[in-house]
């Protein structure tokens, strides 16, 4: 199971992040996880939302430079060492992470981790084999 992450190119300008958030918010789209990759002059907003197809359409219609990237989200116990356990599986199996970010769910005792792997299929197989719980699209919608 993979998730669709939405990336939006944002220039460093006041209120730009808010523009994205309020556009999604006013259309009933809920963000589950987000991070910003930034450089001196621009940023790339990455997020996992509950209705990704609708979100990407909406962003593009509003002239945002946005695209979809496959990511894998996993749930881990929200306790010390939770992430380390997953990372050990990943590195023991030579899976490369391009980037990752985390998010704590408020209604459960799990943390949500979003990974962008070099080879998504391979990474998913490894995670499955090791019994790591991967978050599916429908789980995100229900969170």
């Amino acid at each position, binding site marked *: 199971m993979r998730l669709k992450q939405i990336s939006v190119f944002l220039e460093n300008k006041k209120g730009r992040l808010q523009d994205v958030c309020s556009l999604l918010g006013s259309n009933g789209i809920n963000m589950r996880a987000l991070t910003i990759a930034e*450089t001196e002059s621009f940023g790339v907003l990455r997020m996992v939302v509950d209705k990704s197809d609708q979100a990407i359409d909406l962003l593009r219609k509003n002239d945002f*430079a946005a695209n979809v990237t496959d990511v894998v989200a996993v749930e881990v116990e929200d306790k010390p060492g939770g992430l380390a356990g997953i990372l050990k599986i990943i590195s023991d199996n030579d899976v490369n992470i391009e980037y990752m970010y985390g998010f704590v769910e408020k209604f459960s005792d799990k943390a949500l981790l979003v990974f962008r792997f070099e080879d998504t299929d391979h990474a998913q197989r490894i995670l499955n084999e090791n019994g790591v719980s991967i978050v599916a699209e429908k789980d995100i919608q229900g969170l």
Partner: protein
Amino acid sequence: MTEKFWNKEIETAPRDQIEKLQVQGLKKVIQWALDTPFYGKKLKKSEINSPDDFNCIADLTKLPFTTKDDLRNNFPRGLLAVDMSEVVRIHSSSGTTGIPTVIYFTQDDVNRWSDIVARSIIATGARKGDIFQNMMTYGLFTGGLGLHYGAEKVGMTVIPVSSGNTKRQVQIMKDFQSTVVHATPSYLMHLHSVIEQSGPGLAGLALRKTFVGAEPHSENTRLKIEEMFGIDAYNSYGLSELNGPGVAFECEFKDSMHVWEDAYIVEIIDPATGQQLPAGEEGEVVLTNLIRQATPLIRYRTRDLAYLTNEPCRCGRTHQRLSRITGRTDDMLIINGVNVFPSQIEEIIMQIPEVGTNWQICLDKDGALDKLTVNVEIYSKMFSGDASQIEKLRSRIKEELRASIVINPIVRLHEPGFLPVSEGKAKRVIDNRPKI
């Protein structure tokens, strides 16, 4: 006792004598021009078949103008008047739309050009015995080599250091006790700030004069340079189509530039009508090159705006003087002495698929030097979602611009729709540099 003139007889000739030389020169140029594919056709169309139709300077207006487009459209050999084996030098400029222009020189052409540059140098009071550090770029650009040959002809000690590497320039100025330098005004200002920062300042320098050119500057800029270095600065004018530097040069009195009229016929025209304008009225500078056989050029429209004065000069020279260049009839920009058309920048960025339709360039001063910022909107559909893609795109645009216009720009990427869209003609160039 040092000689004040390089060629006193010609430099101080009465007007009728100068005009006689011009008519003789023009006859020669027409003969040369008729040997080129381009003028062969163009002149015949204007029913000019022989130099014999030209007997006074007023006949000049019978001749058609030549434009930069003519040079481009006839690249590479359409204006070549001699056999290629007679050509000893080629100077070329990268074109605004990818089509370059080229100028050929025979050995005699190089000699005549060098002689005019030598005359220019002597007019400023520089002479044999001076140590001349040439900070203009050598290469296909004419600024470096043009002064080089003229200075050697004068007998100066020439240091062909070319442009850039400011610390080394300063070291060389000290090591060889350079007395005269040739540079753009903005580079001299930059040079001064580097000297200030690096310790003993001007102590240990022997500088007394500088020739400045290749970019428009104000009288105040000249005064500032003179004051900063404690030297005299002489303005010069030239363009590669007309050989290069030495078309006009200031004499010791630094009051506008003498156009060497036995070598170049100068006219000022109304750019809209093409009619000649009298002295004192500003218009487009039009030049005819009388001293180059390999690439004759007749009534060339320079696109530079200026005016002439024919008041007698205190130096005794009778050749008319050209004012500072006050502007351009086109949108050419001069950035640190390099000529750049906005269309060149457009050409480069528009061939990159990740770039959207809107772009803008900004020019600012960064200390004494010009700073070019290119703002580009990205094309949404090409955005992969990767931050590294954007960073790569930015370096690619920067690198391609640097390679093509020889200026290192700052490149900023913007979201689609973020650059101002003006109604009608888009305002692509924001020039924040102080007006001259």
